[in-house]
Structure formats: structure tokens, C-alpha cells
């Protein structure tokens, strides 16, 4: 897969097709402001209201016909009130004034019966996103069920016509287009909103050789229609994922170098970031407590967070408390330079919120050693003889000890060449050593959700099989 450059399509913003949403940002902001007014009127010490609306169409096809066609449309309001460190939360799917009255009363009623946590309170006023710029994220397509059906059928067609001696069929091909709006108001007088869109195409395939069946899948997600991979590529790729693993054999127990394929590598970035959340740091449920300033990975690695990337899949002008994030290094040259904190966890750690209430933003793991032509072929040559890991099925990671153990599948590689598909084994190690041992990062960057990373070379892992 090639690195996809994001682009800001100004034209797309000029002439916007109809959105699937029924309400404007102003409608949602009104509901949020009303919830704050009610909370203040009932004596809440502080309050945050979040209102969202989502809508869209999702179509799946199989065997050349529509299987499911779904019209999505949902909304919700969530109010959080603080009463001297007591936190009451309530939510409703109705935005009527009477429903808002009810949830506000419920939240305040609950809060008053709790015990105080001195660190639970509104975000620091100075950190709120009063002036951060808007981020382009809204690209409504207004695509009809028919248009989405056509897209899904084109994907399916590409998958089933990807012929080899083995048969390939599609268990599900799908296309969806969704729009979403979000408004946030606080009792500081802060009230802002944003809108976003998401286009999704996917394909799940089954390849068959005699009694043997193997699954494969591929998907493409972008905020803009123009950013999606072509339908034909998605279908073909999904078919290949299944076909290529037919005839897989087990691996015997051994130690070997492992090249983690870029789409799978995002799970390791996630495991690294999980060490750096406020909760992990505060509860010391991490192998790296007091992480700030400590070495977490090989020194050629840097991890960047960017909340403001135009059309980024994890972009947001402010977090779920109204706090603005910033583009920053989380890890620089292998050393931790940033944590993921919301207001409460920041106060507990005697730090400042980093604008991560509600999650991490767009992340990118890069290496100083990556050359422009370090594509997957070059990375397999760097692996030499070992495992090319293309699938992680599940398993466990223990954040406190770093113990890592996963059921996996992939290809056995000798001298940079694919020898055969392999499955029915686990890979295991310790994250503390694995992050430090990463010896190369490919230029074959893949974006999974908000994470961009190339394939990762781990020089020594334990493989367990028959």
C-alpha cells in the first residue's frame, strides 16, 4: 500500500452536496447551551454539555445483490456536572427541552450523593480552544443508497474476478457515507461546534481450495470521497489477502526476526501509547511509570501527534472538555516528551491537560533511518530470513509488565523472498524490549484510523507453534 497524501480540497467546500443530517451546528449548540443554563440555574458548580448528531447510509452486498441497506440517524446529549469534586453524568437521545431538563436534574441529583475528588473539575479556562482555527473535516457526499450499492458491487466484482486456480468469493462488500456534528458548551461560557464526514469502503473475502477456507479483508476510510482507494483496488486487495494465505502451514517453535506489516504495526503504536495515558501513569499500570523524560523506544524513532490535520481521521479543534491540543512530539529520539492527559488525570499528576479528553489525535511514528525507497520489498530484504507478520488475530498484552503474546499469521521469508504462508502460531516478547529493539521502519506508510506507520522490523521474537 502506498502512503496517501492528504489534500485539502477547497473546491469541495464551495459547493457542498446535501448532508444526511437534520440539524445545524447552531441547533446542537443551542441544545448544549440550554443544558448549561439549566445546570447553572439549578446550582451546579460547573458543567460541560456535549451534543452530537450522526447520520448516513450504509450498504452491504453479497453475491451481486444488496444484503443490508441501513439509514443511520442518531443524536445524543450528555451533561457532566461538577459539585465540589463530585461528578454526575447523564445522557439522553432526545434533545427536547423537557428531556434536557430531566437529564440535568438527574446529573445534579447523582452528583450530590457522591464523595468529592478534588481533581475532578472543569478544564482550566486558559487552556480552552477559544481561538484555535477551524479544521476542514466536513465533506458531505449526499450519496444515495443506489450510489453506495454501485460502489459496493464494483468492489465485489473486483474481488470475485481476481482469479487464480482457487476460488474467491465475497462474504460482504460494503460502502457507507456518514456525516456527524458535535457541539460543546461549558459553564465558563465556552461554546463551539464542528462537523465532519467519513466515507468507508470495505470487502471481506473467502478463498477456498478443497475443504480449506481462508478469510481476507481490506478497507479504505477517508473523510472525503476523493481520498478513498479505487473500488477495484479494494476488492482485488481483499481477494489477495485471502488467496495468498491458502495452503498455510504451521511454524515450529523458534526464535526469529519479525517484520510487522504496516497495517498491523498500528497495534504496536497503540500499545506504546497506552503506556503514556494519564490513567496508566497515575495508576502506575505501566512498565514505564513517571515516563516523561525516560527512554521508551529505539533512539531513531519519533512519534508526533497532530490534532489539526485537515481531514485527519482523528482530528479535532478541541477535546471533550473544550481544551485545545497542539501539534507536538510524544516521543522524540526514543525519549518520552509528552503524555495523553485530560484535566482530571493532569491534575492528579500535577501537570496540564494536553487536550486528550476523549482520546488520542492523529499519530505518526517515523524513523530517522527510513529511506524513500524502503518499500515492502526493501523491508523484506532487510528481514532476510524470518517472519513477515501480516495478521494478528488476538491475544494479550499486560501493560504493567509489558508481557506480549498474540496469535498471528503471515509468511515465512528466506533471503527476502516469500517461501510460504504460515499460521497456527503465536509471537511473544516483552514490549519494553520490543520498542527498544525496533531496527527499521519502512516507507510503506499505512494509515489505520488516526495512526500512520510503516512496517516495523523486530530483530528477535519468540514464535510458538507445533
Amino acid at each position, binding site marked *: 500500500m502506498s502512503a496517501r497524501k492528504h489534500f485539502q480540497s477547497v473546491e469541495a467546500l464551495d459547493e457542498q452536496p446535501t448532508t444526511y443530517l437534520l440539524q445545524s451546528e447552531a441547533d446542537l449548540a443551542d441544545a448544549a447551551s440550554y443544558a448549561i443554563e439549566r445546570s447553572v440555574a439549578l446550582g451546579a458548580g460547573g458543567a460541560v454539555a456535549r451534543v452530537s448528531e450522526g447520520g448516513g447510509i450504509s450498504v452491504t452486498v453479497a453475491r451481486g445483490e444488496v444484503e443490508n441497506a441501513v439509514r*443511520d440517524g442518531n443524536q445524543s446529549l450528555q451533561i457532566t456536572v461538577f459539585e465540589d469534586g463530585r461528578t*454526575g453524568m447523564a445522557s439522553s437521545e432526545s434533545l427536547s427541552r423537557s428531556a434536557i431538563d430531566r437529564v440535568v436534574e438527574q446529573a445534579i441529583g447523582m452528583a450530590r450523593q457522591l464523595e468529592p475528588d478534588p481533581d475532578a473539575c472543569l478544564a482550566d479556562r486558559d487552556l480552552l480552544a477559544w481561538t484555535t482555527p477551524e479544521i476542514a473535516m466536513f465533506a458531505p457526499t449526499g450519496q444515495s443508497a443506489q450510489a453506495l450499492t454501485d460502489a459496493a458491487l464494483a468492489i465485489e466484482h473486483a474481488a470475485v474476478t481476481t482469479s487464480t486456480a482457487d476460488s474467491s468469493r465475497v462474504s460482504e462488500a460494503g460502502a457507507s457515507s456518514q456525516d456527524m456534528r458535535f457541539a460543546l458548551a461549558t459553564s465558563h461560557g465556552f461554546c463551539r461546534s464542528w462537523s465532519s464526514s467519513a466515507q468507508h469502503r470495505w470487502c471481506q473475502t473467502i478463498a477456498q481450495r478443497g475443504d480449506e*477456507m481462508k478469510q481476507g479483508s481490506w478497507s479504505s476510510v477517508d473523510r472525503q470521497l476523493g481520498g478513498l482507494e479505487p473500488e477495484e483496488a479494494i476488492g482485488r486487495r481483499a481477494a489477495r489477502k485471502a488467496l495468498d494465505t491458502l495452503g498455510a502451514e504451521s511454524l515450529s517453535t523458534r526464535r526469529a526476526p519479525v517484520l510487522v506489516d504496516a497495517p498491523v504495526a498500528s497495534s504496536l503504536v497503540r500499545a506504546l501509547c497506552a503506556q503514556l495515558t494519564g490513567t496508566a501513569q497515575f495508576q502506575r499500570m505501566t512498565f514505564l511509570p513517571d515516563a516523561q523524560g525516560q527512554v521508551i523506544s529505539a533512539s531513531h524513532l519519533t512519534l508526533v501527534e497532530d490534532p489539526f490535520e485537515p481531514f485527519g481521521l482523528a482530528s479535532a479543534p478541541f477535546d471533550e472538555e473544550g481544551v485545545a491540543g497542539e501539534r507536538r512530539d510524544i516521543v522524540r529520539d526514543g525519549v518520552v516528551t509528552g503524555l495523553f492527559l485530560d484535566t482530571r488525570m493532569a491534575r492528579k499528576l500535577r501537570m496540564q491537560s494536553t487536550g486528550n479528553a476523549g482520546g488520542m489525535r492523529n499519530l505518526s511514528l517515523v524513523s530517522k533511518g527510513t529511506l524513500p525507497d524502503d518499500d515492502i520489498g526493501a523491508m523484506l530484504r532487510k528481514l532476510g530470513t524470518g517472519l513477515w507478520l501480516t495478521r494478528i488475530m*488476538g*491475544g*494479550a498484552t499486560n501493560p504493567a509488565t509489558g508481557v506480549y503474546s498474540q496469535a498471528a499469521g503471515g509468511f515465512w521469508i528466506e533471503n527476502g523472498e516469500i517461501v510460504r504462508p504460515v499460521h497456527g502460531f503465536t509471537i511473544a516478547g516483552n514490549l519494553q524490549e520490543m520498542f527498544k529493539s525496533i531496527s527499521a521502519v519502512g516507507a510503506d506508510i499505512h494509515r489505520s484510523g488516526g495512526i500512520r506507520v510503516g512496517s516495523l522490523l523486530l530483530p528477535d521474537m519468540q514464535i510458538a507453534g507445533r
Partner: protein
Amino acid sequence: MSFPSVDRLARAQDTLLVANDLDTAKLQDGLSSLWARGGDYGDLYLEMTTRDTWSLERGKVTRAAFAISQGIGARIVTGDKTAFAYSSDISGKAIDAVTAAARAMQSHGQDAAESGRGVRIEAIGQDAQAYGIMHAAGGMDTIEKVAILRTLDDLARAVDPRITEVNAQLAVEDSTILVGATDGTLAGDIRPQIRISLSVVAESNAKRASGSAGGGGRFMLAEFGSDRLQKLVEKATSVALTNLEAIPSPAGEMTVVLGNGFPGVLLHEAVGHGLEGDFHRRQESVFNGMIGQRIAAPGVTVVDDATVPGARGSLNIDDEGVAGQRTVLIEDGYLVGLMQDKISARIMNDKMTGNGRRQSYADLPMTRMTNTFLESGPYDPAEIIASVKNGIYAVEFSGGTVDITSGQFNFSAEKAFLIEDGKVTAPIEGATLIGVGNEALKHISMIGNDLELGIGFCGKNGQTVPVSVGQPTIRMDHVVVGGAGA
């Protein structure tokens, strides 16, 4: 004569229809208009769910949340094509809007002429009677809920000074549902659900380990007595304390003894999902076409039973209005039955088993498990452990996943030990068990007499539903165990 199912339906009608100025006639009108442009089947699903959650952290209950979720889902099925729309409003206007939206999603080529097929819905007969009509909180107020969490905190800290963190959560949920369908079904259910969960951290010589436990089901909070709380505490603390001493798990093929209760997640993953009707209808399961064949060792009997009184996965009726029931999936090693929802049963010409479930009104029903477990066998658990020369004893698991097409499953031990010369010795960490569903059950060589259920969440295609899993202690040979040790 009054059936409990009739009372439940009456209550559901009060909550979902009468309170919203609706009646059964409006539901019938909605159903008639739903399939007016064609379709084999249609249903309207109304739901109102309230949930409150209380959280304890560092000895104090400082956070609570209340959520109310309600709405209508409208579905039309033609062959195996489904059109679906939903609304978070419950009103006559909303019924009209969702039926119109679902029809708009119906694929082209339907007969556009309104054929005006009337629908008459009637109450179904008996339901499973797996739980009564109740509020999950059962009148317990905030002070009593907070007291339960405090008790957990006190009990956990009293176990061992190395327990340094205790977090606990209590969730109380009441769901009322009503289903009307073009096949004439009218059914309602009142579903309580409570869940208490606990996680602890143990710390010693700069090593940290965590442990967790959860319990609950469809019964009243007051029934969660001190013995049950004590059991949660014992489980969570023993996992954490054991793991403080754990050495890396050995890797390779070996004999494994699985503990009773939640380790039944192996069956859930290895065979349960592969016996869901919708996967068979699409010919995606590794168990396709194996009905009547031996797929497990003699003595292995696996059932899905929605009628277990008060269990987490129990259902008086499923989300398609079919009575919950007990379905034998594997009998003495032979595959004898599948779980079915209405659509898959109709297409496969199989019987309905009450396994049509959905996460909420905003999601489509699928074939899902309820309480799935392996029946007890003849052996004393101690005898099973003593029979193993070298292997591992896996007592607790954190969960697992399966690829139903290839049958490959994996699950991760949370608390496990080495077995050496028939004796349980050193604790181990990082053990992941893998295998292939249609082979693994053939390697069950001993079945204990200590069946127990554990509670879980089951995810499928993005929807999560509450389930139970369970089994007695079992011995399984030739299991691949992955770990970082030699």
C-alpha cells in the same frame, strides 16, 4: 388464566405504547405500511433502556452516570436482503418516518404499487420465564449502592497489603422491549441486568500486576450478597497476587487443564460462533455441512440455554419475539444443532431457536449466543490435574477471538500455572492458547464434574450483547501454547 408472558407484554405496552400515545393498532398500521412495497417479513422493535453506573476509585465513589436510550427500529426482509432504519423518538410520527425510511432503503426492483397487505399481531404464548418482572435496583437507593462498592474496596484491601489499587463499578440496567412483526408476532419483555466489576493492582518490589473479576445477571441487586462479593474479591486479588510471582509461559504444544467457569470462553470461540445460523446460511463457517458428524470427543455435550434462571445471557424472548430456549449444539461429541434467528431459519428451512439478538433498536438482529456451556462429566478436578505429567493449568482467562472461516481461535490466560508430575507448581504469565475449532474439541480427554458459568460480553460485527460462558474443569491435549519463555 394469566401467563407471565402476558403480564410482561402488558407492562411493555404500557411503557412503550401507552406512555407515548400509541396502541397496538398503530403498530399494526406501521407493519402494514412497512411491507406495502413488497417483502417477506418486517418488524418494528421498540425499546427503552435506562442504565446507571457508579464508580469507585481510590476508596471513594466520586463519579456516577445515568443514561436513557430509547427508540424504534424498522426492518423489512426480502429473501436475504434487509432494509433498516431507526429513530430515537417513539411516537406515531416516528413510526411513519422509520417505516418510510426503511422502504426507501429497500432495493430497487420491488413492486412500487402499494399492495396494502394488512397485518394482525397477537400475543405469543409462553415465553422462557427465565427471570421475573422486576427493577434491577429492586428499590436499593444510592447509599446502598455506594455501600456495595465500599464493601468491595474494604474486602480487597484486607486480603493482602500488596493490594495497592482497587477500582470497582456497579451498573444497573432496566430494558423494556416490544416486538411486532408481519408474521403476527406481538411480544414484550422486561429485562433487568446488573453487573459488578472489580479490578485491583498488586505491587511488590517494583513489580506490578493487575487482576479483575465481574459478576451479575438478570436478577435484583439485593441478591448480590456478601458471599458473591467475597468471591469477586478472591478472584481479582488472587489473579494479581499470583501474577506478581509469575514467570514467562513456556511455548510449544502441550497438555492443558482448563479451570471451570469463564474458561468456557474457549467453547464460545472455538465452536459457538461457528454454529451461529447466519454464518451457515452464508457458508462461512468451518462447521458448514458437518451436522450429524463427530466433531468432538465422546462425552462432550455443548448447549446454548437462554432459560437458565437469572443468568446474564438469559432471555424470556429474543429480540425477534421468539421464546428463549435450550438448544443442544453438540451431543456426546456429535454436532446436532445450530442456533438460529428468524431470517436464517427461514432461508435454511431450519427451526427457530430464539437466538435473534440485537445490541439496541439502532442495530440489526443477528444469530447470537445466550448462555453457552459444556455439560459436566465424571471426573473430580483434582484427578484431572493429577493425570497430567507435564503441562499447564489455566484457571482464568481474559478473553479470546475466533476466525469462524478457518476455525482458528485464540484465547489468553490471565492466571495459569505449570503442572509438573501431576502437581500445580509455578505461576506463569503471557500464555496464549491457539487451535482450530473443529480439531480442538476432539482433544478433550477428561471432563470434570464442576460446571460453572462465567459472565461476559460477546462482540460480533460491531454489536455487543451480554452472554454467559461456562464449563467444568477439562483436560485438553495437543494445545499450542504461546509464551515468551523457552
